[in-house]
């Protein structure tokens, strides 16, 4: 089936707009879904896909916009309203209570059940549905006993049990093995054959091609393209997803690499759940060079930055800084070997919100003279340093004594830059340094990174913005599922190639 043969969309969203403090998560986004079809929603992290879907299931209230289901204008105030309309969502972070059984989770919140439901009856019905869709799972097992793949099956069963007609799957394959993803494809096919419809959120091009009939590309909260899957190709989608326009043209001198500053030899590490996040990563960065790390979020970038800065244990391999082994040293020891860190979570890890701008700027140099002598701080010298930094880095703050949490994101980032660059003696690790910043602040941040490179320091730049990497990095390494897929020189790399490598395609263009 396609749009021509079934002209009435089962679902329509028009002009959905949603603000979060400082962020325009959805900006007049439109969406149409036809019965029996799969619509892929493609976009980078933070493009607003999940927000749009959370609006659809009633978890977020839109600031503007209308929703039509089966041609009828509807107001969705809560997930219960959505369920009544036959809309259900499998969230990226599963919505399952780990200490309850599969059956209990499936009937959670349902109203059309007896006051004291017969659990054996519930289990019987679950088995029935499991068999029909080939979604095998034990209704009496506890969620915490199940693998991630099984948990996802429970999520889908939950929707089918409630008779959902429109299924939303938020990056369902992100946690699955290739075999499980394939199985999921078959399940989705069986459901759409029965006339159900699905919205499939992803940033993997192959899945769009494999699963969907239509694709909508989102960027910065807007829907920037609507394509029939059959009439497009991965290259075009990659370009649409990342955005065509080059936002910045910064003057960049030729790279003059010095000695190797950072070297990773076959480094592996686990994520917070104890699963492998980095698998044998090797690369080196010279002084006077920016190495960019590209990749879709969640492919090991965070763990890479943490491993280098001493915040995460390496399970295998070696890290050398300035030729000295620095594997599994404490963060303080790493700082003392000349490493500076601009963390991804600038509010949580970069600053102490309730402390003054001046104190935040002094937070790295306070251990040594002149800021401290014989263990006693010199508030006046701290203030002097802060004034100088505020001036040099053009930090807009009412005073050096202002609590830093009252500054804008861009100015907080400038304060972090001021502190880290001032203390930098060899390697600067910058993680998503311009994320969420406005045009001016973004440019300031990028200029500072280039300055550091020109001053002979090594910069490890982790970014989800390919344009940024192409503009200021000298070489770009692509990370996918914890592995380096390849390292390309920035001046010959193009977005299509990078996009495909980010999606796990093996491009032998090294």
């Amino acid at each position, binding site marked *: 089936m396609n749009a021509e043969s079934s002209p009435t969309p089962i679902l329509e969203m028009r002009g959905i707009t949603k603000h979060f403090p400082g962020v325009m998560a959805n900006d007049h986004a439109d969406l149409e879904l036809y019965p029996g079809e799969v619509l892929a929603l493609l976009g980078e992290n933070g493009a607003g896909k999940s927000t749009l879907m959370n609006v659809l299931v009633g978890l977020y*209230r839109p600031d503007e916009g209308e929703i039509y289901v089966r041609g009828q204008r509807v107001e969705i105030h809560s*997930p219960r309203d959505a369920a009544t309309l036959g809309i259900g969502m499998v969230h990226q972070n599963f919505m399952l*209570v*780990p200490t*309850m059984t599969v059956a209990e989770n499936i009937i*959670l919140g349902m109203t059309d*059940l007896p*006051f*004291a*439901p017969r659990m054996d009856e519930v289990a019987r019905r679950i088995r029935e549905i499991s068999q029909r869709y080939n979604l095998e799972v034990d209704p009496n097992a506890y969620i915490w006993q199940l693998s991630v793949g099984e948990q996802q099956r429970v999520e889908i069963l939950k929707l089918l049990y409630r008779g959902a007609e429109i299924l939303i799957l938020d990056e369902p394959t992100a946690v699955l093995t290739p075999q499980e993803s394939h199985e999921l494809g078959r399940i989705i096919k069986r459901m759409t054959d029965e006339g159900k419809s699905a919205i499939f959120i992803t940033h993997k091009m192959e899945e769009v091609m494999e699963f969907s009939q239509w694709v909508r590309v989102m960027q910065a909260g807007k829907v920037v393209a609507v394509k029939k899957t059959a009439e497009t190709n991965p290259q075009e989608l990659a370009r649409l997803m990342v955005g065509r326009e080059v936002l910045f043209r910064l003057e960049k001198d030729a790279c003059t690499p010095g000695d190797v500053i950072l070297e990773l030899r076959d480094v592996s590490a686990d994520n917070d759940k104890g699963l492998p996040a980095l698998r044998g990563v090797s690369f080196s960065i010279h002084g006077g060079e920016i190495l960019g790390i590209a990749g879709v979020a969640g492919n090991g970038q965070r763990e890479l930055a943490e491993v280098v800065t001493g915040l995460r244990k390496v399970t295998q391999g070696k890290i050398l800084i300035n030729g000295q082994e620095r594997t599994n040293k404490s963060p303080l020891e790493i700082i003392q070997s000349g490493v500076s860190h601009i963390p991804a979570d600038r509010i949580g890890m970069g600053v102490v919100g309730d402390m003054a701008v001046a104190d935040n700027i002094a937070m790295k140099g306070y251990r040594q003279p002149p800021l401290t002598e014989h263990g006693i701080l010199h508030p006046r010298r701290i203030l002097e340093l802060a004034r100088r930094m505020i001036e040099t880095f053009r930090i807009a703050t009412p005073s050096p004594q202002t609590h830093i949490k009252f500054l804008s994101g861009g100015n907080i980032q400038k304060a972090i830059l001021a502190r880290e660059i001032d203390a930098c003696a060899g390697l600067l690790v910058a993680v998503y340094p311009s994320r969420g910043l406005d045009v001016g602040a973004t440019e300031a941040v990028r200029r500072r990174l280039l300055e550091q490179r020109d001053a002979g320091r090594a910069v490890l730049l982790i970014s989800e913005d390919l344009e940024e990497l192409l503009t200021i990095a000298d070489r770009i390494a692509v990370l996918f599922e914890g592995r380096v897929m390849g390292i390309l020189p920035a001046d010959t790399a193009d977005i299509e190639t990078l996009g495909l490598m980010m999606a796990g395609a093996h491009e032998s263009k090294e």
Partner: protein
Amino acid sequence: MIEALLLLTQILTITLRAGTSLIYAAVGEIYTERSGILNLGLEGMMLTGAVTAFATAFYTGSPWLGVLVAMGIGMIMAAIHAFLTVTMRANQVVSGLSITLFGTGLASFLGERLGPASNNGNLVGMVGPRFGPLEIPVLSQVPLVGALFKQDILTYLLYALVPLAVYYLYKTRNGLNLRAVGEDPQTADAMGIDVTRTRYLYTILGGMLAGFGGAHLSLAYAPGWTENITGGRGWIAIALVIFAMWDPARAVLGAILFGGINAVQFRLQASGTTIPAAYLNMLPYLMTILVLVIMTWWENLSHRIGAPAALGKAYMREEK
């Protein structure tokens, strides 16, 4: 032999009487905490419940009216706690402690003002209507088991309340939803359960049962009003919740243990032992600390954490 059995039966009878108010308060607190709200205001609610129950019974002559008023007072105080912690997202520990401080002061104040003018407005020393023991013929004469049938009506009510509380929590839809809210409010919300409503409802229910427990103290267990009539039972009930691993049936066990120590201690004091009374009085509290330490240690050892995962945490839907 027969004498020993009689003594044991007698101790059991006192045990149950001493444990009743604890069971009410602890079952209420279990429901509150299962919704993710920690209510440290229990002690204040029990004290205020006790004084208002006695005052009401004293003037109206109806102990039942006293129980009703105590329940109402408990509900109002719990509603304040729910408003502060659920709607205003205040720190649950701070809010609970404030309510206990407030309730303790209020109860003392009322105790000195609500009494008759002939007693300078003081309630202390007044004798009012009470729930006396109702012996059930035949059954109450059976050794040991008879202890169950020599109780006051409020204790008899527990025989229905506890099984009901267990059934509701584990077998009904509402119980399932309640457990989900305390474990994982985000999931509960996504599944269409009203987290705010659930938390208000069970916090208020918990306050109501705390008031009920307070009423049992001043109308049945130790009829009349004395300063600090609870003797810290509000706090012990909170400790019992942990001991019970948030299970109403196990709370009964804990309450019997505590009540038993109380009963034995009374018995010993009455028998004229040489152990100073202060040490005997200390026993129940010492036991509470001991039980808490052992339970926590055991939980850590067995990696079993009984507490609802979201206990003490405020929930807001659009948090980004």
